[in-house]
């Protein structure tokens, strides 16, 4: 009697946890693991049409050695570099300002900065696409005109095209990063600043020796997601240029996947680009994390 009760209890304990995690397990298997595995398989195949599939070894990967892929890789890397360069220091400064109790209207500014993150990329992208139009009357050119500057053809030159992309990204994600950094700032104990005051440190010293080291975990987190975000960028470039990217100035790796996969119906090659992208992002992040000493910390 006692014995059966025990096994029953044991068994019910055994099932319940699985029930609760099953939605996640199932969705992981169905929408993550299965597509990943089938992408890896497809990257070794030539998929000509329905039922017309053949294994071609590493040919898709050999085909990656072409100027377009390198253009896409270069653009994506430059974009990621700039977004990190802008979207780490700028939000830190703003977060410090907004975290000060003396700042007037800081709650208003916090929500105002956060608002763009709630818009859809496509809606925001279309707005910026028109703002960066090449006529004199478009938003950005009209502002330049006020300063007596000539209108610029923004979206048909490499440097200005990249600028437009980074501006859109900054506009959208600035507020989110500010929120991360503010929560990081609030975790830094006030005592540290107080004792620094007693030691006679000025604000710059406090920023360099207390605030930044205190924010390190948040900085690592923000950079890591920025690397993923930067390399996965697609929608911004798509709303600016659609599929006809003049001179490949906005061609990103994901857009290259899209073009080969859907525009040219070469799913095998597109899969190979996707797998390569996965490795690139992993390598970049591992380098970045080890530079910050993230792994060393784990071992301690």
């Amino acid at each position, binding site marked *: 009697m006692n014995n059966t009760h025990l096994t029953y209890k044991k068994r019910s304990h055994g*099932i319940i946890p699985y029930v609760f995690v099953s*939605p996640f397990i199932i969705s992981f298997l169905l929408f993550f693991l299965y597509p990943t595995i089938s992408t890896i398989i497809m990257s070794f195949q030539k998929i000509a049409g329905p039922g017309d599939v053949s294994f071609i070894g590493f040919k898709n990967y050999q085909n990656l050695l072409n100027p*377009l892929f390198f253009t896409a890789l270069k653009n994506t890397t430059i974009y990621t570099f700039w977004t990190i360069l802008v979207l780490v220091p700028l939000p830190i400064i703003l977060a410090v300002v907004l975290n000060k109790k003396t700042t007037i209207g800081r709650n208003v500014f916090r929500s105002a900065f956060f608002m763009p993150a709630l818009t859809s990329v496509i809606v925001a992208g279309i707005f910026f696409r028109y703002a960066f139009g090449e006529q004199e009357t478009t938003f950005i050119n009209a502002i330049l005109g006020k300063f007596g500057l000539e209108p610029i053809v923004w979206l048909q030159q490499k440097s200005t095209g990249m600028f437009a992309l980074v501006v859109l990204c900054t506009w959208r994600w600035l507020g989110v990063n500010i929120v991360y950094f503010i929560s990081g700032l609030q975790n830094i104990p006030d005592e540290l600043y107080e004792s620094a005051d007693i030691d006679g440190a000025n604000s710059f010293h406090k920023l360099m020796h207390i605030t930044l080291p205190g924010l390190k975990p948040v900085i690592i987190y923000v950079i890591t997601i920025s690397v993923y975000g930067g390399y996965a960028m697609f929608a911004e470039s798509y709303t600016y240029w659609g*599929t*006809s990217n003049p*001179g490949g100035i906005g061609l990103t790796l994901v857009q290259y996947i899209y073009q080969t996969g859907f525009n*040219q*119906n070469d799913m095998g090659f597109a899969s190979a680009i996707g797998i390569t992208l996965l490795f690139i992002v992993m390598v970049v992040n591992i380098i970045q994390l080890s530079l910050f000493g993230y792994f060393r910390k784990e071992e301690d």
Partner: protein
Amino acid sequence: MKKSVAFLLILVLTLGIFVAGCGGGKNANQDTATNDPVEQPDTNDKNENSEPAEEDSSPDKEAEVTSLIFWTFQELHKQFIDDAVLTWNEKNPDSPIELVTEVYSYDEMHNKLLIALQSGVGAPDIADIEISKFANYLKGSTPSLVLLNDYIGSDIEYCVQARFDNYAKDGKYYGIDYHVGATVMFYNTEILDQAGVDPKDIVTWDDYVEVGKKVVAETGIPMTTIEITDQWTLYPMISQIGSDIFDSQGNIIIDNEDNIKVLQFLYDMVHKHKIAIPAPGGSHHAEEYFAFMNNGGAASVLMPLWYMGRFVEYMPDLDGKITILPLPAWEEGGYRSAGMGGTGTVVTTQSKHQDLAARFLVFAKVSREGAIKTWTMLGFDPIRWDVWDAPEMSADNKYTDYFGKGIFDMLLEIKDEIHPTNIPEIYPAAIDIIKRDVVFKSIREQSLTPEEALKEAANELARQQ
């Protein structure tokens, strides 16, 4: 015991949610065609937020109504096909059709269709495929599209056959176009009058340049604009001169001498004669361009005839100021047009009613009535040239109001001056390269000469082949 039942229930529920999530898209965005034809134009935005429809449980009618699904990326095509359904049901009371049209955005529709055909489930009965994507669907040994030769039959004699070859593989026709897409020159007569020139005097491209110089000198307005991020300037002119991107065997000839000559000519118009400018916004479909042209920004533009619709819709201020003429020839007596663009409507092999769908499709687009409707409803030049002089073609509509009458008299003049275009499997990649690199690098960026730009394109295509 109870608990394992509960577990099973939860499992079923969870799976149910997933299955529902997967299947939901199928019935969403539907909008029946035959139910309330009168209200059709008003129901357009229904597509965006209509509730997922229930399974088809239409009330029993006398003859069995066959329900077909049609995918398109163009709202106008929906109206055209819906109208054809009404006519069909009148003429074929024994096999009535109920057509469900789903309008998607351009990319979304082509992607969905590609994946549906690739995976073997979920494709519609009938679908529109734009010409620059069509080759994607003919890849592989057995295309998932229904062969249409037998359905078209002898009607093809009255059609511009080059338009069928665009959607063919080994002489088998898989798609039916809406129009010929004869490329013409749209002249702004107000500007030309101001400069004191008559477009009818222009015979060759050299004349065109001379007139252009006069226009620029007199008015300061550029003679024309050139597409940088689209193919509709370079490609028609290449076709007009008798060349192409590929030869009939599918070999790459994009860098041949004729093509270099054409691109060099475009370069000279912009940078040497200074009578042309890159189209604002990069293409003749950019918002910047519509505003620019509507304000009398350029004296003429080269586009296929289907561009009429854009004038009527997006450039209302030019009403009555635009005249349509054949292209200037490369040499006297040379061809004065090119057949450009298009959308092939297909029947998929996943359809359960392939025969009916194919018969309906041919009725809608190849029959005399259908061909006339492509003009009266869509403003297209019908693929069937034997209707071009039908009285309906010169009746008043919004296009004759805007451009004046006699469009089809002009078209009849040039109907035999259109070279066929060759569309092998790698065609989508070629169009991508023209849109991305060729004109941009040679004319806008000037980082390559026209010859280098075309050579680079040829090398890139060869690599992809």
